[in-house]
């Protein structure tokens, strides 16, 4: 928290100024005003997949509406299991269903899966490589509700878990393609979810989601941004802004946090003299940035390196656009960081 304890804000009536944004709903849309979106891409993709996959069931801990699983629940009411607000039970029961041959898609918020249910995911699911797909809304900083709902360390928590594949999709297209891909993947998967009206960005690029593959979306000589999740759209936007200023930025989208696509990352990050930025919607500790840094150190790649990530702090509550600016995740903030570093 940046504010002092009980610090009283300036009142609008006393200090009239620019319009102050409101926190808005629990899950604020990350879409820009004129950005094309798709509604509930995960829910619709799962319904489509379930037509041909009778083994797919859906479980939630009282958050179907907020994870887009309600779309599946409506289409397949007998394949939907409401487990109540009990995340340990949720994961244990999913393990039991997977043992009996089903492929459970399990949804809750990222904070609850990581912080409350870790041991159950670890021992009941991951240790036995059961095909449970854990799909969690509110990854990183995607709500203004404060630390109780901001999963700023979910990747740090889960990266240490053996057997677990971790996916951080960028947009609606990524989610639509990742949903069947993780269902076909033999082991457990954690996928960070953007829900509601989710921006559609990657359809403008020659792109297809593949587990374990990083994809170069645009090339450039001045800097390389390796990014995952919504930070890929921010990086693309920042690259557009910088191109207008004569700075050409390459963007490597890396939606699989684990296992890391080491070959592609090394090939791109090894280009001499091009600084490497890693942009992630996550704490600077334990996420994609540190994973890439460790890889580059191990392999002797010593280009300039900088993380664009959230600070190691419990973050403020407030309106999401304000917070993304404050903590450096907005496109403008990303462009500024790259500009400062590349000089």
């Amino acid at each position: 928290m940046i504010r002092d304890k009980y610090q009283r804000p300036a009142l609008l009536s006393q200090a009239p100024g620019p319009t102050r944004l409101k926190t808005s709903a629990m899950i604020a849309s990350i879409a820009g005003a004129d950005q094309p979106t798709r509604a509930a891409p995960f829910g619709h993709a799962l319904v489509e997949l379930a037509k041909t996959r009778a083994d797919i069931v859906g479980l939630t801990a009282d958050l179907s509406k907020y994870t887009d699983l309600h779309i599946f629940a409506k289409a397949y009411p007998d394949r939907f299991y409401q487990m109540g607000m009990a995340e340990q039970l949720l994961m244990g029961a999913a393990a039991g269903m997977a043992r009996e041959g089903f492929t459970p898609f399990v949804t809750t918020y990222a904070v609850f899966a990581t912080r409350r249910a870790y041991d159950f995911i670890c021992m009941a699911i991951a240790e036995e490589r059961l095909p449970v797909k854990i799909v969690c809304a509110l990854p990183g900083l995607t709500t203004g509700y404060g630390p109780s709902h901001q999963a700023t360390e979910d990747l740090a928590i889960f990266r240490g878990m053996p057997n677990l594949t971790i996916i951080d999709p960028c947009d609606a297209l990524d989610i639509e393609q990742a949903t069947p891909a993780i269902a076909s993947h033999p082991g457990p998967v954690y996928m960070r979810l953007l829900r509601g009206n989710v921006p559609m960005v990657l359809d403008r690029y020659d792109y297809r989601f593949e587990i374990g593959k990083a994809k170069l979306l645009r090339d450039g000589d001045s800097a390389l941004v390796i990014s995952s999740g919504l930070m890929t759209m921010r990086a693309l936007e920042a690259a557009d802004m910088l191109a207008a200023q004569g700075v050409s930025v390459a963007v490597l989208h890396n939606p699989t946090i684990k296992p890391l696509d080491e070959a592609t990352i090394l090939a791109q990050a090894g280009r001499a003299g091009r600084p490497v930025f890693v942009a992630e919607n996550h704490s600077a500790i334990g996420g994609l940035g540190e994973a890439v840094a460790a890889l580059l150190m191990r392999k002797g790649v010593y280009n300039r390196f900088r993380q664009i990530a959230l600070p190691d702090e419990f973050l403020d509550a407030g309106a999401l656009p304000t917070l993304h600016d404050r903590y450096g995740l907005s496109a403008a903030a990303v462009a500024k960081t790259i500009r400062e570093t590349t000089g």
Partner: protein
Amino acid sequence: MTQETNIRPNLSLAERAYRIRRHALRMGEVQGQGYIAQALGVADVLAVSYFHALTYRPGEPEWEGRDRFLLSIGHYAIALYAALIEAGVLPEDELETYGGDDSRLPMSGMAAYTPGMEITGGSLGQGLSIAVGMALALKRKASKAYVYCLFSDGELDEGAVWEAAMSAGSHKLDNLIGVVDVNNMQADGPSKGVLNFEPLGPKFEAFGWNVERVDGNDIDALVRAFDAARHGAAPGPRIVICDTKMAKGVPFLEARERNHFLRVEAEEWTLALAALDAGRQI
């Protein structure tokens, strides 16, 4: 007796319990220490489970029609191995590998190691949640199989047990049979002193379960309770609460005050086996 095949089919349940205790003591001797008292205490419950209640095929541990028996208390593995040996699921000669390098019988039970071990227990309090998922799945498959989940009074400290208990009641899982070993001993001392869980029967009743509470070392009482659990017409999950005596059957070990993790001197194993033999009911 409902298992499809069985070696030595004419042995009494009391004799089965005796033999399970003997297998457990022999495994204990390999390590020189371990969760012997729990194994001796729960042997009658396992004898009634594997030789009266459960449907299974000893040579086909993953047979789809089997009743699932989940060991939530991973450190009771020594007891379940003894029962699985007696049931013909595991060969008796593997006793000597218990807890050793590359053994299929690790000290804490793990599904990937041992035929007949349905889940990886050990992180206490997880079994009943997994059992809920399996019971829901079996209903989805229209299977007639039961899910049994053996857990301990110590595990009742874990909040997740009560999440699962509420869920099983809410989903009316009449194919789920919980079996609680109440031996009133956990790592730090007598269970009721660590965290009082009584009155236990009424707690489960309040969560929608059909409750039987019996002396877990009384085979006739266990048979009646397991029959009631399996054949009762009432909706909802069933639980058999078994009050057992730690180290039952070996009086000088029963008398040890702190017997959660027993250390037994080398010469005492022979004495323990002799004491067990002396109490054998023929």
